[in-house]
């Protein structure tokens, strides 16, 4: 399987991309993992078919609700520089909702949130501050105690 290091034309460009740096690392606590309620936040530009597609520098989010079927999820991330064939074969390689439900059934985690969220990762993270605060409120409303962040 190819790693980023095996793709020099992509690796150099991606490593050089600007990203925000912070003076401190905030640290929130929660219950043991087997009692946590887990939500996913993806930056793969995922959304339900028919929702507004993501555009360049879109700092908004899309919600993925409790009754969303895998066949309803599409991806409008603007970057062409990552593999999509894995996602085409199995949604869980990008958005492992089935795996989270299995882990909840096995007792490894407490429960799975009803609502999950998607951003488009090519956007400057600094533009996402207000949206992220809004989504944080929604996650708390869903009693989430662990946010699993999944890039693409």
């Amino acid at each position, binding site marked *: *399987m*190819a*790693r*980023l290091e095996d*793709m020099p*034309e*992509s690796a150099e460009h*991606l490593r050089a991309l600007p*990203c925000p*740096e*912070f003076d401190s*690392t*905030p*640290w*929130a606590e*929660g219950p043991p*993992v087997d009692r*946590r309620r*887990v939500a996913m936040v993806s930056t793969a530009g995922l959304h339900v*078919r*028919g929702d507004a*597609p993501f555009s*360049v520098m879109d700092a908004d989010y899309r919600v993925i609700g409790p009754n969303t*079927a*895998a066949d309803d*999820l599409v*991806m409008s991330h*603007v970057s*062409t*520089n*990552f*593999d*999509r*064939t*894995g*996602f*085409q*074969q199995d949604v*869980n*390689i*990008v958005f492992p909702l089935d*795996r989270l439900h*299995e*882990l909840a059934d096995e007792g*490894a985690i407490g429960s799975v949130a009803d609502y999950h969220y998607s*951003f488009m990762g090519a956007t400057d*993270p600094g533009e*996402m*501050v207000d949206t*992220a605060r809004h*989504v*944080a409120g929604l996650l708390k409303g869903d009693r989430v*105690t*662990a*946010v*699993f*962040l*999944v*890039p*693409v």
Partner: protein
Amino acid sequence: MGGLAHYFETEGLPTTQISLIRQHTERMKPPRALWVPFELGRPLGAPNDPEFQKRVIMAALDLFHRTTGPVLEDFPEDAPSDSVGTGGTGEGTWACPVSFPLKEEGDVRKALALEVWQLSSWYRMAWAKNGRTTVGVSGLDMQAAVALLADAARGLEVENPLPGLSWPTTLRLAAEDVKAYYLESVAAQPGRAATPAELADWFWGRTKAGETLRALKAIALQSEDQEMQLLGSLLLVPRAQAHR
């Protein structure tokens, strides 16, 4: 990703994350991150491997047991090798689904229509096998999508069929749907096991659709419209295929 972790933690929400680009995570210092040695686009490693995917998730969630941070840990396993095709030996020869000489410019539309038609059975089988399709971000019928791209790649003025979106966005979404349709279809063919890189080489180097998108890139770069220039420079053809 590290930025979102910072914002959520500041709001009191505990986070853990997968990291695909270690250098970015080192710079942003999110509280908990698991670096994985996987290809971009595959944060859980491999498709249709539930046990491997669960090991990745639990390795990320186990970082919640740490009492101080930031934590940046390496996932110890490489992704299992996988090929996208439905089996076979993996020794099949990749070929363009359509190969005939083009005599006139107008044949591009016809050749694309034929490619789509010839792949349609495989596309339906892929949909049935996977239980889903990722085609559909534009909402355009596939034949309409390729006709639109063929005309745009010849520099023709075409009415935007998605009036709520800018013309470059319509073209980008149509291109995404065409790529997904081709790659889902060809992955359903038996004996055609191939890596993602081989599939990309096939699409961009050996299909009329790939050739059309490369032609559209050149047209977009000539435009005076900034969004069209962005489309041409970054949003149509992957960096790894730009040499063609």
